[in-house]
C-alpha cells in the first residue's frame, strides 16, 4: 500500500467531488503509477484545464498549473519545451480536451511531444451542471440536450490514434488494476500518450439519465466493456454495444523535444 498522504496536499481536502464520483479513483491510480515509477515530486508537473476533473492538480503536491478551459495541453507544451526534464502530466475532462481544447489535443498528438494526457471521460460537462459534451452518446439527455443528444459522439481515443499519438489506452474506474498499469505505461512512454478513463458522474449525468448511483454506473462499466484481447476474438456484430478497453496503440515515433534538441546540438556544433 502506498502512502497517499505523501503526494496529497492534505490541507486542501476534502475534495470538491460529489459522493459516487469516479474522479477520486483516477487520482489514486495516477498517484500509484507515479509511486511505482519512483519519480520525485519535484520532477513532476501536473497541468489541467477547467472542469471537475481539472481540479485535480490542486490536491497533489507537485508543480501544479490550473489553466484556462481547454488550454491545458498548450500550457503543458510550453512547460515541457522550457524544461524537458520535467515529467508533464495533463489531467483534463472530455469537454475540456476535445471540445474547446480539441485543436490543441490533435496537434500535440501530431507533434508527438512527450506529454501524458489523462482524460476523465464522464460523457458530460460536470462542473457547469450537466450540459452536453462531445462524448455524450446519441439519445442521452443533458441540460442542453433535453430531448436527447442528436450529435454522434467522439471516439476520443481514436482521435488521438489518428492524429499520431505514440500511446493510446482506454480504461475504466471499475478495472482499476488495469488502469494503474495503463497510466504507468503512458507515463513511461516517450512521446504523446493518452489514457482515456471512463468515469461516472452520477450527479450531472447519471441522475438525469436514470443510471442509478455511482456504484450502479461503475457496475455498468463492467458489463459494457471488453478488453482489446477479448474483442479481437469476436466478430464485429457482437461488439456493437461494447466499449473496448486496454492498450489501443503503442508505437515508437520520433518525439518532438528530442528532435528539437538534436537540431540545437547540430547548429551549435557548426
Amino acid at each position: 500500500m502506498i502512502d497517499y498522504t505523501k503526494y496529497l496536499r492534505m490541507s486542501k481536502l476534502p475534495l470538491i467531488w460529489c459522493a459516487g464520483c469516479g474522479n477520486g479513483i483516477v487520482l489514486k491510480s495516477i498517484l500509484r503509477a507515479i509511486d511505482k515509477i519512483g519519480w520525485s515530486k519535484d520532477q513532476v508537473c501536473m497541468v489541467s484545464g477547467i472542469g471537475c476533473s481539472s481540479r485535480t492538480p490542486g490536491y497533489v503536491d507537485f508543480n501544479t498549473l490550473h489553466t484556462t478551459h481547454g488550454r491545458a495541453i498548450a500550457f503543458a507544451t510550453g512547460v515541457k519545451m522550457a524544461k524537458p526534464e520535467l515529467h508533464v502530466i495533463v489531467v483534463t475532462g472530455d469537454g475540456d480536451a476535445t471540445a474547446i481544447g480539441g485543436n490543441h489535443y490533435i496537434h500535440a498528438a501530431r507533434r508527438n511531444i512527450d506529454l501524458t494526457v489523462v482524460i476523465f471521460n464522464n460523457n458530460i460537462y460536470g462542473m457547469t451542471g450537466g450540459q452536453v459534451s462531445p462524448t455524450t452518446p446519441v439519445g442521452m439527455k443533458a441540460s442542453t440536450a433535453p430531448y436527447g443528444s442528436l450529435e454522434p459522439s467522439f471516439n476520443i481515443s481514436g482521435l488521438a490514434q489518428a492524429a499520431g499519438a505514440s500511446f493510446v489506452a482506454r480504461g475504466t474506474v471499475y478495472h482499476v488494476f488495469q488502469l494503474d498499469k495503463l497510466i504507468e505505461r503512458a507515463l513511461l512512454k516517450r512521446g504523446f500518450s493518452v489514457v482515456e478513463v471512463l468515469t461516472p458522474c452520477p450527479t450531472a449525468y447519471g441522475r438525469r439519465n436514470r443510471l442509478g448511483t455511482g456504484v450502479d454506473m461503475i457496475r455498468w462499466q463492467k458489463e459494457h466493456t471488453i478488453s482489446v484481447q477479448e474483442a479481437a476474438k469476436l466478430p464485429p456484430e457482437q461488439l456493437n454495444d461494447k466499449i473496448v478497453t486496454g492498450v489501443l496503440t503503442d508505437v515508437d515515433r520520433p518525439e518532438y523535444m528530442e528532435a528539437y534538441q538534436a537540431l540545437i546540438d547540430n547548429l551549435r556544433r557548426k
Partner: protein
Amino acid sequence: MQREKGPRVEVMTGNDACAEGALAAGLSFFAGYPITPSSEIAEILSYRLPQVGGKFIQMEDEIGAMGAVIGASLAGAKAMTATSGPGFSLKQENIGFAAMAEVPCVVVDVQRGGPSTGLPTLPSQMDVMQARWGTHGDHEIIALCPYSVRETFDLTVRAFNLAERYRTPVILLMDEIVAHVNEKVILPEPDEIEVYERKLPNCPPEEFLPYKFTEDDIPPMASYGTGYRFHVTGLCHDETGFPTNDPVQIDRLIRRLNRKISRHRDDIVQVAEEQLEDAEIGVVAYGATARAARQAVRLARQEGIPAGLLRPLVLWPFPDKEMRALAERVSAIIVAELNMGQVAHEVEWAVCGKVPVHRVNRVDGEPIPPELILHAIREVAR
C-alpha cells in the same frame, strides 16, 4: 557566437529589431501563430532561437501560443509571442491568465486595421484600447509603443525587463510602418544592455509563498522543477496560490495586482519631448505617427508657429501627469493617431478641459502625412 568588436551597424526593419532585442534581453522561448504584419518576428526567431539554445514553436493557434508562453515562463524561460489584431483578440483570455497568475511574458502586437480581419498589410493604431481593456476583469497592464527601428530594439529589451520586474505580461504595441520600414541602426554592445532577471525566493521551499505580499507588492517567483512546488491558477487565490472565495483575500489580491503597477507608474512611464520648451501648441503622437508629427512640428517652426511634440513611449499606464504638465505649458493640444481618437480621449480625460484637445485621425489604411498635422497646427494657431 563570436563576432568582431565595434559598433554593430545594420540595416534592419522593426520586426528584425524586435526579434534581436528579445534575444538581447535573454529570450529563450517563443510560441506564435503567423499573421501579417507580425509574421517576420516568428520567422526570424524560428531561425535564431535554436542557434542560441532557445526554443521556437509554431502553435496551432494564437490561444495555444499564449498558453505555451505562460507554461514556458513558469518553467523559468523568458518567453514571448507576436501577433496582430485578430490574433491579439484571441490571446486575450490567456493574457488575463498571465495578469492574474503574475507570469512574466512579452506579447508583441503589430497592429493592423480592424474590426475583424480588417487591413492585413496597411498601417493602423487601432489596438490601443484592446491592449488596455481586451481582457475581462480589472487589472493594470503595461504597453510600450516604439516609433523607430532602434527604439523597437530598446523597447523590446525594456518590455522584458518590465515583465520580469513586475511579474506581469507586457505588451509591445508596434505598427505596420515601424515593423516594415528599413532603417540603419547602430545596436548597443551586449554589455551595454541592462537585463533584469526575475526576483527569486530566498527562503526554504516549505516557506515559499508564490503570491506573498511584499513591501513593493511584487512577490518573488520560483520556477517549476527547482524544488519549490507551488500551485498556479487563474482563479482568485490567496498568498499560497490556492483558490479562495474569502472577500478579504479577493479584495487584497485584486487591489495588489492593480497597485503593483499603478504605484510604480513613475518608474514605468516614459515620454520623449521635442521643442516643447517654448511651445504654445503641443502635438501628441506615438508610433509611426510620431515620425510625421516631428516633421510637422519642424515645418511649423519654420513658419514661426511655436509647436512642440510630446511622444509617449509608454501608453499604459497612461502618461496622465505628463499630459497635465503639458496642458500647463501650451494653449492647445493636437493628438494625431491612426484610429478614431483612442489616445485623444485619454488626453482629454487627463487635461480635464484645461486646454482644447484637437484630433487628427485617419482610418483609411493610409499613414498620416506631416502635412495633415501641419494643417491642424496652422488651424489651431490662427
